[in-house]
């Protein structure tokens, strides 16, 4: 069976000997919503970096749709990344571009046709509820709104998977909730979601699959899990 993402015996040791991940075996199916939890330094960021090939594992294999992404040539990496949408804690929007331009930019980069861009961008911005801010620049937006733009940008190329690294890390609880609800809606439309987070309440309320990392090891993989189960 073809899994969306499969890690087999993955370890990552950074130069200098720091062990970030150790013998990770995990399968993520199409359409799943997965929380990646654990304290700072547990390996969440490395896990994500491995998925979109910012880093290569020291040992083990990573498969995306059945394709071994550890064996990709450098010029194949962009085409992997086009099937992954990435959202960061610090949003990473281009400050001099408007909301519309920021989202359209993601389509220009993959050389989409102007007609498709004109059709698709407003739809996606509407989906994240920012139609009234099309021409605003990032500094005129609140944190929550900026994260919505980042989400729209990640979504606009119809990725198979959306990977969010601490998407609510810079947001207040109410806004965090709205972003989570938005992520959930996106997931319901069929996109696989992987969300690394510290937000205990959110994880506990959403009751999704939880992968818990501790010192680079996968210590828990639970369906409908909570942030931490007391043993």
């Amino acid at each position, binding site marked *: 069976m073809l899994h969306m993402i499969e890690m087999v015996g993955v370890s990552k040791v950074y130069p200098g000997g720091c062990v970030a991940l150790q013998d990770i075996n995990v399968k993520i199916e199409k359409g799943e919503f997965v929380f990646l939890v654990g304290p700072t330094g547990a390996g969440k960021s490395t896990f994500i970096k491995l998925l*979109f090939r910012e880093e290569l594992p020291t040992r083990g294999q990573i498969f995306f749709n059945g394709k071994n992404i550890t064996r990709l040539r450098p010029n194949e990496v962009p085409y992997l990344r086009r099937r992954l949408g990435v959202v960061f804690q610090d949003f*990473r929007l281009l400050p001099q571009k408007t909301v519309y331009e920021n989202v359209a930019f*993601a389509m220009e980069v*993959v050389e989409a046709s102007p007609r498709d861009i004109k059709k698709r961008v407003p739809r996606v911005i509407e989906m994240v509820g920012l139609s009234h801010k099309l021409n605003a620049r990032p500094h005129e937006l609140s944190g929550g709104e900026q994260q919505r733009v980042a989400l729209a940008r990640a979504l606009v*190329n119809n990725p198979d998977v959306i990977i969010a690294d601490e998407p609510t890390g810079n947001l207040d609880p109410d806004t965090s909730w709205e972003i989570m609800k938005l992520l959930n809606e996106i997931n319901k439309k069929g996109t696989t979601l992987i969300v690394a987070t510290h937000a205990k309440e959110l994880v506990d309320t959403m009751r999704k699959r939880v992968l818990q990392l501790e010192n680079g090891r996968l210590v828990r993989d639970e369906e409908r899990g909570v942030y931490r189960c007391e043993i």
Partner: protein
Amino acid sequence: MKFRTIRYFFKEAFANLLRNGWMSLASVGAVASALIIFGSFLMISINFDHVAKDVESQVEITAYLKDSVNQLEINQIEYQIKSITGVKEVTFISKEQALEEFKKQVGEELLEGIENPLPHSFRIKVESPQEVADVAYRIQGIAGVEEVKYGKGVVEKLFNITYWMRLLGLAIMAIFAVISVFIISNTIRITVFARRREINIMKYIGATDWFVRWPFLIEGMLLGFAGSLIAMTFLIIGYNYLYDTVKLNIPMISLLPIEEFYDYSLGLLAMGTFLGAFGSGFSIKRFLRV
């Protein structure tokens, strides 16, 4: 590559130039000043070369013949000189011609009634100035030749000077070429650095390296082109002025005509453009590794 992508690259490059207006201006200024300095030395160097060649080509050998030679022997000697490799042109100067020339120099009256003391001679031009000494030596060995003169010592000294002038010109040129590359790549590195965020985001979204690189390359080329265009204008105006001044005040030195300098300045333009592209490509490399 799609046409609209190319259009996008140019649009981005121009937008970036305007967005970083002051930085762009500084880059153009840096390129222009580096190339003006470089071009000035190029100008001096090619003129050194030109003057040196001019002087060199004036060096000729005179072979004086023995008084006893008859017409047949003169023909034989001429034939022998012509058969030496490296000889370009041989002119016979008879006793009578030599006297005429001498009279012109010192005045008719002075030589009235004196028997012609001058020998027959040959004036020989050689293919390349470096062969003068060698050819002279071989002419000396021909029977019937009394004496060979070619400004021995003077010629060698002249060659020495022109050799070192050329070497110095080349060295200075090389140094300034390196300095130009350094300034350009450094200035463009600043603009690339200012946009490292953008590059980073593009790479995460799934842009190919070349997609990221092109706008910066075009930007660099435009900066280099603009800078060298300014430098070229300065140099041509300056050279015209210099050429006229030298022609008017020091008539015995003939500088390279301005038309020949145009070719060099076109080269300079191509070089500035290339340096711009090279500098930006060099600067962006580090930021693509994501």
